[in-house]
């Protein structure tokens, strides 16, 4: 007879450890200023590959600012200056030689407010591919279907791909934007409050989608919804006034955070 010496329920007791992860993005002593105002304060962190990392923290703490750094969206803002390093698989994102549009193909982004282009559903999804001069009709068709299925929208729109994307509901538009972002198969997906405009069912659908997508992508998500961070993420970073305060596996952060400041925030206490 086999002797039973220990009991382990994998899902419950296998704790994620950052040391064991392959790292997709490494942030080193990263500072960002809007003019003379400092918005990010010496942020240092490693973001693991094929995981979901959530960024939480009070409004104005710098979550969106940090997220935008990961595909150099901040370049578009004149007053911004930065120092420090951000590496995407050991490649310095901010080096002079970095091809920024190539970088943005590798790091896709979905914004808080769905922002479909005033074009057909089909054209929205294959927009990135057209920019890459993909002309093969079959490739386009297949990619559009794959991306729409991935975004959990295919069944709802497969018969109306030629309709204007603006005719979709808010939740459908948001999933369309996710489809558009994944259509170019980026390595990293940045989501800035992707469900803040959605109803609970669409929200759950997007969360489920995030769970599916992490097999292929590294996902960074900003959310104001603490329960959402707890549900979808593997790691959670708590930010406060431009500082990265506490960053650890989500289980630990939500059951036994190290710092009182984190505890007060996640449990809704007066700080």
């Amino acid at each position, binding site marked *: 007879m086999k002797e039973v010496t220990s009991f382990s329920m994998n899902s419950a007791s296998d704790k994620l450890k950052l040391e064991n992860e392959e790292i997709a993005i490494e942030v080193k002593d990263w500072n960002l200023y809007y003019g003379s105002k400092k918005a990010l304060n010496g942020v240092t962190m490693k973001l693991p590959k094929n995981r979901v990392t959530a960024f939480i923290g009070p409004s104005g703490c710098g979550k969106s600012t940090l997220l935008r750094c990961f595909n150099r969206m901040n370049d578009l803002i004149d007053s911004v200056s930065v120092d420090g390093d951000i590496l995407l698989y050991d490649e310095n994102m901010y080096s002079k030689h970095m091809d920024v549009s190539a970088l943005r193909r590798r790091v896709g982004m979905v914004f808080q407010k769905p922002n479909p282009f005033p074009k057909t559903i089909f054209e929205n999804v294959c927009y990135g591919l057209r920019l890459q001069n993909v002309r093969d009709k079959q490739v386009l068709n297949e990619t559009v279907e794959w991306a729409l299925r991935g975004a959990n929208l295919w069944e709802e729109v497969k018969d109306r791909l030629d309709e204007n994307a603006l005719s979709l509901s808010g939740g459908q538009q948001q999933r369309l934007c996710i489809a558009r972002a994944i259509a170019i198969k980026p390595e990293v997906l940045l989501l800035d409050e992707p469900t803040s405009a959605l109803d609970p069912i669409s929200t759950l659908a997007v969360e489920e989608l995030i769970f599916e997508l992490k097999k292929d992508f590294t996902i960074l998500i900003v959310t104001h919804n*603490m*329960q959402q961070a*707890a549900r979808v993420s593997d790691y959670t970073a708590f930010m406060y006034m431009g500082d990265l305060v506490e960053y650890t596996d989500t289980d630990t952060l*939500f*059951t*036994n*955070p190290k710092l009182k400041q*984190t*505890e*007060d925030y*996640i*449990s*809704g*206490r*007066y700080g």
Partner: protein
Amino acid sequence: MQKKEFSSHISNQLNRNLEELFNHILEMGGMVENQLDMALSALGNGDVKIAKEVVRFDKVINQAEMEIDRLCIRVLARQQPTASDLRLILATIRIAIDLERMGDEVCKLAKLVIKFHKTEPCTTASYAGYAELVDITTRSRDMLKTTLNAFARVSAEDAISILDQEEIVDQVYKKARKDVTEQFKKNPENVECLLEVMTALRASERLSDHALNIMESIIYLVQGKDVRNMDQERLTKFLENL
């Protein structure tokens, strides 16, 4: 960690619910303590009336446990507590289970008194282990009191002070078992009474075990660390760093 942190949420409803949980546990704990006091008095005077009262009271304690479960479920479903709040819920559920079991064990003590009253005559010899029974029960009651106070103050330090008592209980229990076993041999005609004493002894020893479990739940609440089944060495180390 301080108790007042559980009432510093922005949501007053959550503050109220958590406060209620504390109060329910303390109330339920108070009931078991009271039940233990009655059992001790029944044991001391062979008072059957009080003993029957103890047994009847068990129902109320069972209800208290269910009430606490209901409140915990409600807070989980409606307020999604996190961090220390979440640990409070889990600790509360566990403590309520231990208190309910303590109630059951106390009933066994009371039933001894009732049995002794019926089984005539119980000779002096059949009272082997009886003094130890009272001793262990008294210590268990004190341990319970200490842990309840520790829970009320959310203090792991206060809770672990029961470990000394636990050691004494262990020794007294061993001695009592030996005494009773000897009487089995010497006075086999008393076997019925002696078996009853043995059952009650085990019940009283279980009481202290449950107090120990409550201590562990309090440590989990305060430190977020599960110390159940830690070997003595690791536990000592952990407690030293508290």
